[in-house]
């Protein structure tokens, strides 16, 4: 199998979960995954592969944007996690997306209801760039004052996430990945574009 599992599934899975938890608890902070390398022809990076390994199993349904299944991802997921791939975005517990895959027509992911806001899809996003300090300003729970984030060309994604506030507690939570880097923007985050600065030089990342 070209896609590798964690060498120690119990403890590596736990460590990866704690990175995702830390990212979700402090939106805009970067975590670096120590996950197995992905095949050369994969469209997702190690941080995202590690997240899938840590969170998916027989009880989860995954929606995959066209193109992101490259390199035999679906078979690998079936083999390593048993998770089911769905074609219906509203049924998905997790969705593998790129910012571009969220532009019109936007997939209708589950946003939960006011009574059960947890019944929503969590976005697992593949980005071209991800770094602390950037044009997007984050505020809210988990953030002392404000943080800023560089996410590359991701306007459709950020528009979608910025719209979360108006629908709260319904909404989409996003785990952002770029190669081995990982950050999160939960629905509780207030998001706005600040005066555009120059992207940081180290923000672009290799795809693995």
């Amino acid at each position, binding site marked *: 199998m070209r896609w590798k599992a964690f060498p120690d599934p119990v403890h590596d899975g*736990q460590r990866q979960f704690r990175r995702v938890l830390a990212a979700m608890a402090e939106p805009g902070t970067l975590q670096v995954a120590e996950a197995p390398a992905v095949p050369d022809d994969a469209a997702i990076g190690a941080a995202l592969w590690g997240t899938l390994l840590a969170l998916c199993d027989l009880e989860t349904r995954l929606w995959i944007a066209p193109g992101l299944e490259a390199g035999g991802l679906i078979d690998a997921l079936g083999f390593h996690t048993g998770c089911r791939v769905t074609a219906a975005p509203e049924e998905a517990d997790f969705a593998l997306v790129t910012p571009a895959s969220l532009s019109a027509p936007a997939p209708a992911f589950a946003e939960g209801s006011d009574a059960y806001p947890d019944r929503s899809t969590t976005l697992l996003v593949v980005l071209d760039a991800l770094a602390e300090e950037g044009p997007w300003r984050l505020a809210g729970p988990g953030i002392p004052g404000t943080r800023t984030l560089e996410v590359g060309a991701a306007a459709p994604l950020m528009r979608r996430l910025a719209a979360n506030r108006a629908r709260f507690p319904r909404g989409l*939570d996003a785990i952002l990945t770029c190669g081995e880097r990982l950050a999160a923007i939960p629905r509780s985050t207030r998001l706005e574009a600040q005066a555009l600065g120059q992207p940081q030089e180290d923000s672009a990342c290799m795809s693995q």
Partner: protein
Amino acid sequence: MNGYNFAYLDEQTKRMIRRGLLKAVAIPGYQVPFGGREMPMPYGWGTGGMQLTASILGEEDVLKVIDQGADDTTNAVSIRAFFERVAGVETTTATADANVIQTRHRIPETPLAAGQILVFQVPIPEPLRFIEPSEEETRMMHALEEYGVMHVKLYEDIARHGHIATTYAYPVKVDGRYVTDPSPIPKFDNPKLHMSEALMLFGAGREKRLYAIPPHTRVESLDFEDHPFEIQEWDAPCALCGARDSFLDEVITDDRGGRMFVCSDTDYCQNRQEEVA
């Protein structure tokens, strides 16, 4: 331990709880239903907190367990021994040395630090439960953000007693949205929830709910302009360490009415005694 997975729970159960925790952190104060499992300890004795601890705990973690603020109360001893047995993790009584702290009824006096996780054992996660016993009804109240009944209840206290008569499990509002039960901590501890450096996770095993307050999150104790929230005060300092800023337990020392007040947080008290000595 033979026959059981690391930290007792099987990996599928841990993943289910972990997915729930991510939702809980993303919707601060909202009670996420989860498929709570039976634990080898009775419901009501911390099974919710234990399931959360088991789901987040790793081999590098250092665990502290307290009950009533103390590391040496029987239930704290029992839960700590359980995790030593099923996870083999290092344990400590020093608040500053722990990165996961499971607690019942207290928040440590020593301010928590970034990177620490505090796991609360919760008996009744629903702050509205004693006003409205039906889950169907309270779920609707949260959905509609209809919290008037809670204010009415608190105001009835004032009308009757001149004070809000809730002294523990004092309801809070998290990030301006969800009215949340902070677990039966004394209201003395409520201010520590506000803008904490640490992540706070809450687990109710029997009721099968988990919720979270992320670090740096606004947490307000419900009150009224003419009756602002206030915390307990004692006339005397701790008889052992002299602290005036900690929650004190009353200890009866004889059968002639003799009593003294000492810190409920044993680690805090001991550190202060050592500093003085």
